[in-house]
């Protein structure tokens, strides 16, 4: 059997296999890319909500952080799922860690500010003046953080010794001292975290990564279209080859018949009209000779 005769059919089948595999591959790629895109889109929606909730935590009427915790949990789960470049990954990690540090400090700062602002009466006027002075300096520092204010406050806080035995309101004074020191140590750091969170280009990174994936999806769409077109073309070409082969076979048979008829006419000469030739061809076996029957 001469297989080289069927090269066009093989070529069409190969074409069909290649393009249909390309089509299937593009479907898989499309699915994978969409799966990569899903957490990014969810993050794009959640991060602004999380940021708002995080910054709201600073307000005194924000009494619990369940909503923030839930968003934090969702964001972290998505950050774990998301498949992005190294820069974006680092950015997400930074955002996550900064937000966790920020909420620890900001929630505590709120409490510290509230506790030192509580008014406690004492008979010791000198002490009350000192504590009033501390509060005044402290709120001035909070409104406009300044290194001089900070130094003055630390000096002021260290100027009074809290003697448990002698002072009736030592508990309050100890509280004021500890919380004031806490505010002084952490207020600027918290503000730095806040600025960092506000300025962090997380959304920009998400948009960039999303654009990359969307471009990839478009490329996959083109690949899918080429795959569909190619595989359909392969099949159409195959059909044409089969038709052509069929046509060629018919033509060849017809030519053979014509040739045979002509040679027979030539062979019989004047008796040609008395001869009836019956031609038969077995379609199943091309090699079977043509049968000629003579009737006189």
């Amino acid at each position, binding site marked *: 059997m001469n297989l080289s005769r069927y090269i066009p059919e093989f070529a069409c089948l190969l074409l069909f296999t290649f393009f249909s595999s390309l089509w299937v591959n593009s479907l898989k790629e499309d699915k994978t890319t969409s799966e990569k895109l899903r957490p990014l889109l969810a993050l794009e929606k959640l991060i602004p909500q999380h940021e708002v909730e995080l910054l709201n935590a600073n307000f005194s009427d924000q009494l619990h952080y369940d909503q923030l915790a839930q968003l934090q949990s969702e964001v972290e789960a998505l950050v774990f799922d998301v498949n992005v470049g190294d820069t974006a990954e680092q950015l997400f990690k930074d955002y996550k860690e900064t937000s966790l540090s920020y909420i620890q400090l900001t929630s505590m700062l709120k409490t510290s500010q509230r506790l030192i602002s509580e008014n406690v009466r004492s008979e010791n006027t000198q002490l009350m003046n000192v504590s009033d002075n501390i509060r005044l300096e402290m709120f001035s520092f909070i409104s406009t953080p300044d290194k001089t204010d900070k130094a003055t406050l630390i000096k002021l806080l260290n100027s009074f010794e809290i003697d448990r035995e002698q002072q009736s309101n030592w508990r309050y004074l100890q509280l004021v001292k500890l919380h004031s020191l806490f505010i002084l140590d952490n207020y600027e750091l918290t503000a730095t975290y806040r600025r960092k969170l506000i300025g962090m280009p997380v959304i920009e990174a998400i948009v960039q990564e999303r654009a990359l994936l969307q471009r990839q999806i478009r490329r996959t769409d083109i690949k899918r279209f080429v795959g569909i077109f190619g595989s359909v073309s392969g099949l159409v070409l*195959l059909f044409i080859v089969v038709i052509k082969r069929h046509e060629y076979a018919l033509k060849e048979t017809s030519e053979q018949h014509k040739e045979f008829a002509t040679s027979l006419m030539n062979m019989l000469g004047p008796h040609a009209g008395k001869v009836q030739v019956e031609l038969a061809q077995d379609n199943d076996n091309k090699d079977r000779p043509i049968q000629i029957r003579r009737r006189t």
Partner: protein
Amino acid sequence: MHTHYYISLILGIFACSAVPLSLYYLSNEQSTIQAEQATVYHFEKVSGAIQPIPRQIEIDTRWVSLGKALFITPLLSKNNTISCSSCHLVDFGGDDGFPVSTGIDNAEGERNSPTVLNSSFNFRQFWDGRASSLSDQISGPVHNPVEMGSSWAEIIKKLSADIYFSRAFLSLDPHGVTRENIVKAITTYEESLITPDAPIDRYLLGDNTALTEQQQRGLHHFINHGCTTCHQGINIGGNMYQKLGRVNTIPDILIKDLGKYQITKKEQDRNVFKVPSLRNVADTSPYFHNGAVDNLPQAVRIMASAQLGRELPEQEVEDIVALLHAFSSKVIEVQ
């Protein structure tokens, strides 16, 4: 034209179609994601720092039953001696009552076992919050050599050989005993372990008689002294990290464990822990990450001093302890 030709052609088309079809089948098989029916809690919001635990829950009870069976089976441990319930006694506060838990071969753990009750309301799991969800957390004790010391392969083998478990898994999922299904069952069961209707919840929802006078005074101190800075929300904690000794020094008995620092090695994480929930706290002694303190008044004094810089008068300690008893309730019966 020959019949052979057409037969070969058709066979060729089939053979060539098999290539993309098998590719499609393989890629589809790999990316099959099991759709999960999530548990739904019906939250009731009130104004204030503490929120009530939902009284209504929609949960897949079939997975809860299987999860409960898995929770109490020792087959999850290497030598079949320890189960989840060995360290988390659901009817007794959800922990084991020891400073640190005992694992396989009598090995001692490093931290106090946290309560499993209401753990689904925690934003992270473990004392250092290293697991982001209940399902992430399960691998921890299973693989920990001083807890269950096992592996998923071993567990799947043992559960598959067990008639009850193999049938129970197959009745819920055609894939049978798999790591994902074990995790799903245990997680769903843990999600069902919530304790609504504690006196504090009833009080928050409008029943003014739910708290005694002393407990109401305790609530007043709890809020005004600043305990709700960290212990707030549904779980009265469990929704943030905080540094132990944020404002003042902490006792030596609590200082050795560096908490989150042990994972991140960052200075800012030194002695930082996930704020534990105060739900059912009266039933979960001893206290703190290493179970070093065995009574509530002492725990209250330590926290007031270390976190808030306060030395509380005895009466206030007693009031707050009375309030802490109002945070206890029994586990909801899932219908």
